[in-house]
C-alpha cells in the first residue's frame, strides 16, 4: 500500500506498523520522532500503531540550528 513519508510516496507492506516503517527506512538505531496524520506517535506506541493506505507520516530528527 502507498503512504506519504516526509512528502514522498512510499510503498509499505499491508498491515505494517510505524516500527516496521522505521525499520524499512533503516532508521532503527536513530533518534527520530514520528507524526502520523498530524498526531505524534510516541516511541512506546510505534510497534502497535498500524499504518493505513494514504497515511501521511513525518519523520524528523535534530540538526544544527540557532
Amino acid at each position, binding site marked *: 500500500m502507498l503512504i506519504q513519508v516526509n512528502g514522498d510516496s512510499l510503498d509499505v507492506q499491508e498491515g505494517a506498523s510505524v516500527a516496521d516503517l522505521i525499520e524499512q527506512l533503516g532508521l532503527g538505531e536513530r533518534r527520530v*520522532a514520528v*507524526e502520523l496524520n498530524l498526531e*505524534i506517535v510516541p516511541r512506546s506506541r510505534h510497534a502497535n500503531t498500524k499504518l493505513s493506505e494514504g497515511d501521511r507520516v513525518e519523520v*524528523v530528527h535534530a*540538526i544544527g*540550528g*540557532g
Partner: protein
Amino acid sequence: MSEQQNDPLIIAGRSFQSRLLIGTGKYRDLEETRLAIEASGAEIVTVAVRRTNLGQNPDEPNLLDVISPDKYTILPNTAGCFNAEDAIRTCMLARELMDGHDLVKLEVLGDQKTLYPNVVETIKAADVLVRDGFKVMVYTSDDPIVAKELESLGCVSIMPLGSMIGSGLGILNPHNINVIMEDCKVPVLVDAGVGTASEAAFAMEMGCEAVLMNSAIAGARNPMLMASAMRKAIEAGREAYLAGRMPRKKYASASSPMEGTIVSK
C-alpha cells in the same frame, strides 16, 4: 568573587552557571560544532528539527550523538516556521524527540529577507504551547508591549532580537531592551544580532540575563577562539553589571591626589 560564583541563571526553575546560550547551525562539521560549544562553556544549546533525509547513510553521525542530552540542555527551536501551526507541530515533534523534555525556543518568522519575528503568529503559538505544558523561551521583536503580552501568556523567558538574525549588527535599540527588562519579571535574553565580544558584553552590562547567539561564533574566521572570547565577554559583562558602573561625569576627576605635587611657579 562569591557574588559572581553564586549567580546562577534560572530558567523555568532550572539553574545554569553559563549565561551564554549557543546555536549549532552553520558550522563546517560536527567536530567544529563540538569544539566551539566546549570552548564557549555553554550549557544550553539550540538545535533545529527537520525531516529526516530518507536517502542518507544511516551510519552518518547524528548531532545528538555529539551534543549529548546527558551533558547539555538541548533547546529545540522552531526556526524556519512562518506560522503558528507549523511552530506548534515542530514543538510537539521536538518534545517526542527529546523524550518529553518540554523546554523549547519558539520563533515564528515573518519573511525570508528579514527573518523578523511575526509577533501575531508568535503570540498565537505561545498561547497554545504554554497551555500544553511547554516551557516556552520566545524569540520576539524589541517591542515592549509584545514582550509583556508574551510574558503574561506564561513564557519562561523573553528573547528580543538585538538586530536581525545572522546580521551581526549588534544591539540596535538598547533603549527598548531596557524597557523590556524593566517590565518583565522572567529572564530577558538578547537573541540574535550580536556580532562580536564587545556587543555580548554590552548586552550583559545592560542587565540582560543571558545572550543567545550562533552566527557570531560559527561565522568567525576561527569559531573556537570566538567561542572562548564570547565566554569571557559574557562573564565580564555580567560582573560589570553586578559591580555597578561608576557614574558618568561631565568633566575630569583626577585619579591621583592633587596635594603635594611639585610646582615650579
